[in-house]
């Protein structure tokens, strides 16, 4: 059970790291570039839609 969970967690964390920019994309080519462009657009849209609620970063005044 724990080994299965570890495999799933490892794969999920790898993909989240790629989507978050902590790891490079595993493949290069035009399809990856398109996918990356779509992902950037989605992120930008999400940020644009939610910006301006509570804008202060907690650690900036430290």
């Amino acid at each position, binding site marked *: 059970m*724990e080994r299965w*969970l570890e495999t799933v*967690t490892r794969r999920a*964390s790898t993909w989240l790291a790629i*989507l*978050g*920019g*902590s*790891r*490079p*994309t595993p493949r*290069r080519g035009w399809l990856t570039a398109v996918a*990356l462009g779509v*992902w*950037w657009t989605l*992120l*930008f849209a*999400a*940020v644009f839609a*939610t*910006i301006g*609620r*509570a*804008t*202060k*970063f*907690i*650690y*900036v*005044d*430290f």
Partner: protein
Amino acid sequence: MIFNELSYFLLFLLPSVAAFHLAPARRRPWVLSLFGAAFFIYFGYIQFGGFWGALCVSIFAWEILTSRLYRPGSRWCLFGIAQAVLILFLFKYLTFATSTWNDLAATLHLPRLGSVARWLLPLGISFFTFEFIHFAADTHQGRIGKTSIRDYAAFILFFPSMVAGPIKRFQDFGPKLQSARFDPVLAAQGITRILAGLAKKHVLADTFALWAAKLNGPSLYTAHGYQIAGWIFAYGMQIYFDFSGYSDIAIGSGYLFGIVIPENFNWPYLSRNINEFWRRWHISLSSWIRDYVYIPLGGSRKGEARTALNLLVAFTVSGIWHGAAYNFAVWGLWHGLLLGAHRQWSRRLPRLAARVPTFAAIGLTFVAVNVGWAFFCMDIGRATVALSRIWRWA
């Protein structure tokens, strides 16, 4: 603010990245220093104390000048450490220290000091003073050799990490600065990281903030324990997404220059114990505290009692670093106690410790960390009310 302002990207990040890559290699550190100083003056002026806030850029000029005197084993390094501590104390802790003294003086019938109002808090002071201390201490120990003024200026004025870290090390940054080149793969990763950081902040952290804000409102006294527990959990998620998002933007900005700065987070809420948590949460600060507070105090080399005391001192320092208030000291003390308890538990009952299921270990660590957040986001009185209401489930 800052990283989520258009002026950060349009006035500083994009022009400096372009100028950095267009400049000859030997001039690149000067490009970073120039933009770093302009960044400090601009945001210091508009957000951190107006004219006087902007004038605090002279702290960097003074530090660059005095750093030229540092040599391995030299007393100038100790002077450098002392002046960084003094700068931090004067700007951040003087008001707190005088009011604490006056509280004590009233109880013990001692002479009171005049109250000191906080004048201004220079942009990023908690972070850049720690980099000053690191440089002076490591030069004193002989861990940093001869450095050029331009590399050191670029190190302390590297604006993506100036305001809230990650806290860099010169030994790591210097070679990366010299070998920096435009790498399209790293730059694409940097853009992803900046956008993901902004999304963490605005989509996730700001949503959790809606619930966490109730902790400092009147509903704390009327809500049920389970609601308060939920709000503290929300604060735990808010601070994670807020600060890891901030670090993502700083690291992603570094990628655009071709410079990889240290990571600050590594899935901290999946830690199986508190020791692991501190290796995965705000990594650049916890490693700084380890190297410049815990180890110089003796670390774990002087017996169990002294190790426990060193942990308490190191984490109380870490707590007070977060803010000049008692609640931050209690937060640090809580983590020092947890680390001490974990150390005893894992040394005295290693077989039992190894048999705790991963799920339970992660859950218990998460709950312990969230208890600490109560003292981080509220004053001691409110945190005590919150935790006692959760405890009574009322």
